[in-house]
């Protein structure tokens, strides 16, 4: 069964996930509301933003993509993924391989980048 997983170091702290989630039932944007099922914890110094998911993946209202939780589809960097557990590891590996090829993927996930990019042919797959 698919769940929402967090790739922490891709989070830029925007709180789109938390803000939209807060509004899905109430129609009110309130990142602090009790209804919110994802909370981006901000570490002082702006140096870490850590999304903490408190949700079973069955979104109250998937607004953007059918069968995809709103938070996952609205995230700009790809820090949130909605996958089966066995596929999350593959996503993480994809990110690490992409980062070895291009520093761009420090700030965005390769599955969010709409253009082809040059893969280094290093190591065996």
């Amino acid at each position: 069964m698919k769940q929402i997983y967090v790739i922490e170091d891709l989070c830029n702290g925007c709180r789109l996930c938390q803000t939209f989630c807060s509004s899905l039932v109430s129609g009110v944007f309130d990142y602090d509301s009790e209804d919110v099922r994802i909370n981006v914890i901000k570490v002082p110094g702006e140096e870490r933003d850590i999304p903490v998911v408190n949700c079973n993946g069955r979104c109250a209202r998937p607004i953007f993509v059918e069968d995809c939780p709103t938070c996952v589809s609205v995230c700009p960097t790809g820090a949130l993924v909605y996958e089966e557990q066995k596929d999350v590891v593959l996503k993480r590996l994809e990110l690490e391989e992409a980062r070895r090829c291009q520093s761009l993927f420090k700030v965005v996930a390769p599955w969010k980048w709409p253009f082809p990019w040059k893969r280094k042919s290093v190591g065996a797959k």
Partner: protein
Amino acid sequence: MKARESRVQTVMHVNLCDGGTFLETLPEQWTRQYIGCRGINGRLLLRDVKPRTEAFGPDNVLLFGTGPLDGTPVGMGRISVACKSPRGTLAEGSCGGFFGPELRRAGIDYLAIRGVADHPVYLFVTDGRVEIRDASRLWGLKTNETDAILREELSDPNIQFRYIGPAGENLVHASPIFGNLNNSGGRAGCGQVMGSKKLKAIAVRGSQGIGIADYDGFIKAYKTFRQKVDIATSRDPWTPVWSTYGAPILPRLFSGLGNLMTRNAREMRWDDEKTVSVNAEIFMEKHVTKAKACFCCPWPSCQKLYEIRSGKHQGFKGGNYWAGQPITFGSLIDNDDLELILVLSGLCNQYGLDIFHVGYTLAWAMECFENGILTSKDTDGMELKFGCRDKEGLVDLIRKIALREGFGALLALGCSEASKIVGKGSERFCLAVKGQELEGVAQRSMYMVALGVAVSEVGPDHTRWYPPYPCNPDLISREDLDQLDIRLDLRKAFQGRNPDEKGKLLRWFTISRAVVESLPSCVFLIRDTLGLDLRPWWNLFTSATGLNVAYEEFVMAGERVMNLDRLFNVREGFRREDDRLPIRMMTEDVPYFGYSRIGPGLLDRMLDEYYQENGWSLKTSIPTRTKLNQLKMGEIADELEACGVEVET
């Protein structure tokens, strides 16, 4: 728990002299006529600041403005900071981060701060309430230190701050207001005014959510908006690269086109290898540690945190490297050491300085030094030359400018005032308009930029008509343009050095950006057709507020805001003669590329078209009574005349 609605907006007035506060509710008519944020700040300044008010006195009002869309996913956390500038003009700037939504959550849409405290204070704002607290222990601290201490003391990680650094405290020219460490705004003088009021910081924590009048309508409008700015779907070629690598892709691009301010803009092209060493790719590779964003930004990484990993400044941390920094501390002073640029601009953020003020004043000083107008006797022994061999001297100079020490004291005045004091022909090296230094956009190759730089009421501010390069006119059809009543020959308008249609284009850009900044939202997101077609913004505004405002009325609000800016300056005595360009741009051709100087005849021709289209006097640039009546601002024309300003029919 109540949710905020957005039809009617509130102003919390604070008097630092006697500690008095009161909450004013603005008429709904103001939301319809001026929208909010920059627009209502402009209207409040006209109402509450009399002409000839002393900028550093108790009667100057410092405004922090949110708007109806702040706290929604389109507001981007923007605020407008505004006051009267120490240079006499309007001072207004936009600033991102997370402060705006939190202020609205506290039930306050605008903070209007007057008076001067008798000791350093900070404001602690909670739901409908402002406490004035002692800030003596914070006075003198850098912005990052202030942030850290306040965060620790107040402990709630969701409290948001705005603050000034030592530069603002010392009333250094062009000091902005900072927040979320690396966001800033109001370089036209808002930080100086905040310092003059002995106001070190503002902390805010609210508890109310932001209600939406028509949630389903808002979501529909959001999807349209998001599709135009998302890296996967935007039809604007700038979007993917801008939203990840960011603005530092520009210096290399600019240099090839003859648009890069080099060695105090004596040249407009820098050595190619040098542009590579300061460009976005190397920055991303070597120094970026993390993506950062403003509240609900749809882009992965407009902002970035960086850390210097090796060398003398190993461990130095900073944030936000855009197009300004590689120009002001790179090509402008002929320094290709990226680490030095990152340290200089990071220190500017920490000390609360404006990078354009510091960069252009350094470049001015270097050209003076080259010409023997300044010697090492004046510069504390520094060899102040383009190429920057004395790197540590430059690093130390940032602190000296913020604290007005030694040679820093002259530089702290900005190049306009400094060249008046130094004389000896140094004025011709000063790149400023209305006393404010330039930014990074080239004038002699893009005439719309020249016109925009000349007329900007706050001094050069490209964000008021951004972007300066043409967007793709093919994205929008002729029928759409006609329907939107944009009567422009787009192709002519976008020809860089064709003076025709520039007034009309600048007028349209200024109006549309005024609308976006009043909602508020972020002008970086004017992508795809969002800069030409404001209907997606209109749908977001009407669905969020529930106000039934016609599209023409919505756009007219932008024109009102543009006129508010001009009216403020006119009341202070500014006229057509003040809409000029720096001497260099008007008297020197660009070497190598051959772009010719912009003579007074050429500038006058473009000013004529701009004023004509705006309904402003060709003689004085004062908005005519006909125009003000058309905008339903007739009572402001009466107030102007009562101040002794001549208003033509």
